[in-house]
């Protein structure tokens, strides 16, 4: 398959630098429609989203154009061996891409990871938080201008029990006793063990 329809309908361009696979560059306005087309069209039926990756072209040799790119890898389970990569270029001043997590459920965490490591905002994402780095992390570590050895300490645990309780409640469970975060004191033994 040569993805002619993709290029005619949505204005995609074949990436000349991709040597090993088919890579189509689309603009972000058409991205959601392109992915929906790829997923549903009987000629391709890309029903597996393999990966979403962010690219930072800051120190890339002979690169012209926007600084960031997001690369979506698709695979078809119906047509054996059919794979495709989509690439969306975004400039640093406007780091926004529409989400595809309503089409592919696993895109949720992929997009969270890309947001975490590159700072690219996916508009319409249901829960865009950091995935790999901790909550107090400042900056986006996989950008080329982040110093690779710069370490950042986390002061407390991520306290996730209230969220867990919320989810259990949504599933129909009944919570008898809500958990409270325990704050440790340094000289607790001076205060005695019996408390009212």
């Amino acid at each position, binding site marked *: 398959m040569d993805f002619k329809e993709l290029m005619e309908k949505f204005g995609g361009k074949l990436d000349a630098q991709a040597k090993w696979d088919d890579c189509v560059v689309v603009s972000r306005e058409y991205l959601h429609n392109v992915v929906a087309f790829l997923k549903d069209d009987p000629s391709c039926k890309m029903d597996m989203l393999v990966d979403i990756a962010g690219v930072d072209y800051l120190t890339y040799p002979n690169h012209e154009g926007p600084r960031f790119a997001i690369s979506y890898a698709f695979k078809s389970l119906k047509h054996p061996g059919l794979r495709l990569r989509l690439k969306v270029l975004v400039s640093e001043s406007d780091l926004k891409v529409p989400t595809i997590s309503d089409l592919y459920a696993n895109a949720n965490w992929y997009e969270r990871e890309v947001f975490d490591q590159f700072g690219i905002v996916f508009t319409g994402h249901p829960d865009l938080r950091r995935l790999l780095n*901790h909550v107090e992390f400042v900056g986006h570590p996989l950008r080329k201008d982040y110093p690779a050895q710069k370490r*950042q300490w986390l002061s407390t645990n991520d306290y996730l029990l209230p969220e867990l309780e919320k989810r259990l409640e949504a599933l129909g469970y009944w919570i008898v006793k809500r958990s409270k975060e325990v704050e440790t004191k340094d000289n607790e033994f*001076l205060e005695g063990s019996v408390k009212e």
Partner: protein
Amino acid sequence: MTDEAQKPSIITSSLDFLVNWGRTNSLWPFPYGTACCAIEFMSTEVGRYDLSRIGSEYVRFTPRQSDVLLVAGTITYKQAPILKRIYEQMAEPRWVIAMGACACSGGFYDCYCTVPGIDHIIPVDVYIGGCPSRPEAFFDAMFDLQKKIKDESYMKQRAGRVRDQLEMIKAKTAEAKAAAKDFAQEKVELAKEFVSEKEQELVKKAQFWKE
């Protein structure tokens, strides 16, 4: 009391010996396994190598019941406060073994997310090299730890602890006394001001009536 406890006598030294004998031969590890070193620890624990030969057959998965915190694997910054909290939950006496290159120094993860050695967070007694370390190396570390425990003196530690607590209580009482003194002084000054104001008012009134 502290001086008497520090002097070695027949009773204290034999008590030390007894306590150390008990501690050396029942070291219960808490496996904090995050990577391949934990797999290696599993093979140390079971069948062929059999860690229970030196008395640590019980792997306790709660920090309240274990003596040795065994950190086997990479510790990231997201995990660091959890490890610290688990160490703080362990009852004294407690020892820490850093197993493998990652736990000792961060290994080859020289990057933004990995703690360069767990001794940035908690004190470590024994380091084991290797990536991952062999079960023999782990046994060696356990023997080292046993030697270290045999040198410890329970009575001395207890005396030190009591001394620390006494000093802390003294400092706290001194602080409280100073605070109470300041408070009383403030109150006295306030009362004085109040009295002087009243006096002035009375004087003014007397002058007014005189006129």
